């Protein structure tokens, strides 16, 4: 038996160990399909997220721009103010502003 190289493996072992089949040809097609599907899913998710953000923003803006009423009492007070304004400014005594307007117009 000759000098044994401590870093060398038996030829029979290394022959079988290094005997690895080639990369399967269909692998790239599968990979490409997987990548494209992931990209499509990600785009859809982004579109859904963007739509949600737009909807939430629009709702928030609409909600915030509406007059805020803190309580029922405040709402009732507001309504009575509006009522009294209508009574004193819009309607005439006979409840017909148009007639009242016409009459005053002709009188003038």
């Amino acid at each position: 038996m000759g000098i044994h190289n401590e870093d060398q493996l038996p030829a029979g072992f290394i022959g079988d160990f290094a005997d690895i089949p080639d990369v399967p040809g269909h692998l790239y097609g599968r990979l490409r399909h997987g990548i494209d599907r992931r990209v499509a899913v990600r785009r859809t998710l982004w579109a859904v997220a963007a739509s949600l953000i737009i909807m939430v923003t629009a709702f928030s803006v609409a909600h915030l721009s509406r007059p805020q009423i803190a309580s029922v009492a405040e709402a009732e007070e507001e309504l009575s103010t509006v009522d009294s304004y209508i009574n004193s400014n819009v309607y005439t005594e006979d409840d017909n502003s148009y007639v009242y307007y016409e009459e005053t117009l002709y009188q003038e």
Partner: protein
Amino acid sequence: MNEIDRLTIEQAKKKDRIAFKRVYDFYSPFIWKIAYRTMHGDAEAAGEAVQDTFIRVHESLHKFSGESGLSTWLYRIVFNVCLTALAKQKRTRIMQPLDENIAVKTSLAESLDSKDQVRAILASMSAEDQFLLTGREVLDLSYEELAAITGDNAGTLRTRLSRLKEQIRKNFKE
């Protein structure tokens, strides 16, 4: 090892399909060999590992700084992908009936020709050891490259591989 040109890498970073295919064609034979051996010769599992590796590459190639070679970066990814897949397999195997394992062992003991010996020795080795052995003996990677991939010290890997080879020499009868 040889690396693909920088221009192709830059184009692949910008998700150029042709450049990405070139990167795949250039590196996949090496990645496949690593995956095939680390996954204990299971071609289906190795194919999955290669696919997972290149999906990760596609998603994060823009983060590749170029400090190390692209091959080192790719080997690190495939190494981690394989270890994760094997950990998952191990969890699933616990659920399998015991008879299957016994049948495999019996058939190996009955006919121990060269190929069976190699298979039996490889079956007794950890995934990390198979990875190191493939990297060193099949792909001719340096200890420094192996250290960069595994995150271990080059000296430690040298000692580990030396012990591993000694064990193989003891167990393999030509």
